[in-house]
């Protein structure tokens, strides 16, 4: 994308004059390649659009209509199922719980990560290299599931908000992304700030942080999505339904009203919509973060 194509033709034009190249001839014929591409892509897109359409369509049907004809077009658009699901599924409470867990855990994670990443990246503390190695190696260690549970249980934090939030305060991949990004900030900046008598905390917080905003945005978004979508940990750690995040709440709702697909479909859609809107705004950061390893390898 970033490759400057403008200067390329200059090199190639003489050759084009000498002999009409294959590209030219292919270009003038019927664009079979494009047609086939569109056919394949459209068929594949159907696999993504059809489940979504089914969901929307079912959400507009009264239950009796759904049982009679699950796939026919809904006879009308009514939002009864949405109000029903909103009340029955205890949505406001679960959404609030999810929001609390996601916001607090992500904020603590980002704040603490900044102050681990900066000194490691700058190499100003002794043992910084060893600490970084510990973050990289941990990606390959065995799952921490069982001892983590024992830890939370013995701290008396099982089935509490604090215990649940604790599980999401670290993220090794996020740390590595931030460490790598800080390396792109020129070191001369440190010097001039120090000369001006700026303290360490103030330097990192009010000068470095704004400069590494893209990396912070990426790890914030990735970390937050992970917490928001987590299903296994609330299943393990939370038995009090007052504490459920929305994912767990939705599964419980399905257990109770499993055959009421119109209501369930409405619930799923109500949960999906804010995610889709958020994605539209943040997709640059999400995709950037997830593909960051691809280019360097």
């Amino acid at each position, binding site marked *: 994308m970033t490759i400057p194509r403008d200067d390329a033709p200059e090199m190639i034009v003489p050759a084009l004059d000498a002999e009409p190249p294959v590209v030219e001839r292919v270009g003038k014929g019927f664009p079979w390649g494009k047609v086939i591409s569109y056919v394949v892509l459209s068929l594949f897109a159907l696999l993504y659009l059809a489940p979504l359409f089914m969901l929307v369509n079912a959400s507009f049907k009264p239950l009796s209509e759904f049982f009679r004809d699950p*796939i026919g077009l809904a006879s009308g658009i009514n939002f009864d199922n949405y109000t029903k699901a909103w009340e029955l599924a205890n949505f406001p409470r679960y959404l609030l719980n999810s929001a609390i867990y996601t916001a607090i855990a992500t904020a603590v994670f980002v704040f603490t990560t900044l102050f681990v990443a900066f000194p490691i990246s700058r190499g100003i503390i002794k043992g910084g290299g060893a600490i970084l190695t510990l973050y990289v190696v941990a990606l390959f260690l065995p799952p921490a599931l069982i001892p983590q549970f024992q830890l939370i249980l013995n701290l008396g934090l099982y089935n509490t908000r604090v215990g649940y939030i604790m599980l999401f305060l670290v993220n090794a991949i996020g740390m590595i992304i931030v460490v790598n990004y800080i390396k792109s900030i020129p070191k001369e900046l440190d010097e001039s700030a120090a000369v001006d008598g700026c303290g360490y905390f103030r330097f990192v917080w009010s000068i470095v942080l704004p400069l590494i905003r893209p990396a912070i945005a990426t790890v914030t978004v990735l970390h937050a999505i992970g917490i928001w979508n987590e299903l296994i940990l609330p299943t393990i750690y939370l038995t009090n339904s007052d504490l459920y995040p929305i994912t767990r709440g939705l599964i419980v709702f399905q257990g109770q009203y499993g055959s009421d697909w119109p209501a369930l479909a409405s619930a799923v859609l109500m949960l999906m919509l804010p995610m889709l809107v958020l994605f539209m705004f943040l997709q640059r950061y999400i995709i950037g973060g997830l593909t960051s390893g691809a280019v360097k390898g």
Partner: protein
Amino acid sequence: MAISLVKKNYLFGQGRKRWVPWLLLLPGFGLYLLIAVGPSLATAVYSFTDASGVRGAPVNWIGFENYDEFLFRGLASRDNLAALQRTLIFMVVVTTVQFGLGLVLALLLNQKLRGRTFFRTLFFIPVILGVVIQGLMWQLFLYPAGGPVAEVFGWFGIQSEFLGGAPTEAFIWVMVVQIWANVGITMMIFLAGMQTIDETLYEAARIDGAGGWNLFKNITWPQLTPAINTNFLLNVIGSLQAWQLFLVLIGYRPGTQVLGYLVFAEGFGQTTGSVSAAFRQGYAAAASIVLFFLVLVLGMSANWIVQRRERKYLG
């Protein structure tokens, strides 16, 4: 101060002020040791004990008992080995299909096509929706009593119970959803890699008369090495550890579980977490160490293949 905690190039103050970076680093690093590294290493220790899920219950050292039971004893071990086999099948199928499909989609969407942003976004969206929404969407899509897929299958005279059908059938559908949900990441990583390939390479090759397949074989495939490596490793490791969709789509059904689900079920009960003496956390820890070694061995093999490829193409 006798011991210096920071290196000489530390600029922000002298004397006691040199503690500051360490004090600020401590909360983050301490949490990391406490929540991630410590428990991770302790898994190996727990696998030699009879720990249960009850607070304050005595924990005894029982040596290799858990491993012996998990791998070699009675009917349960036969089920466990079947789950191990299923995990491998899941890994091979998901990795192969997701890798291949992701590559094809990326190649198609790397062309100048109208609407390619739409397609890219569409295929990527399930990734951010998470397993619960992915799973519920597909339960409805695979609704057996007259749902869309049932209808289409009906045209060809195929009857199916889908997720509620025979274990093999349910297992296949979970693989389908797993691939459907994650092919978007694979595609995006390939696309990111393709965008770094120098366009002039293609132009030069076209002048030499190279066509589609040759361009792919001699330019795209070797130049794509970093993205290929990332995707291959991510797919192998990810699919060995993936089991959440089993929980959402079919629950804990005999004849369908993979190792990850087994660990969860033994350690925390099959559906919900309520503290109980019945939870065999020591045993579950042993099972997760078995899974860990599987990931390690296969991950390292994958890495070895990747390295060899890299030497071949990049010297």
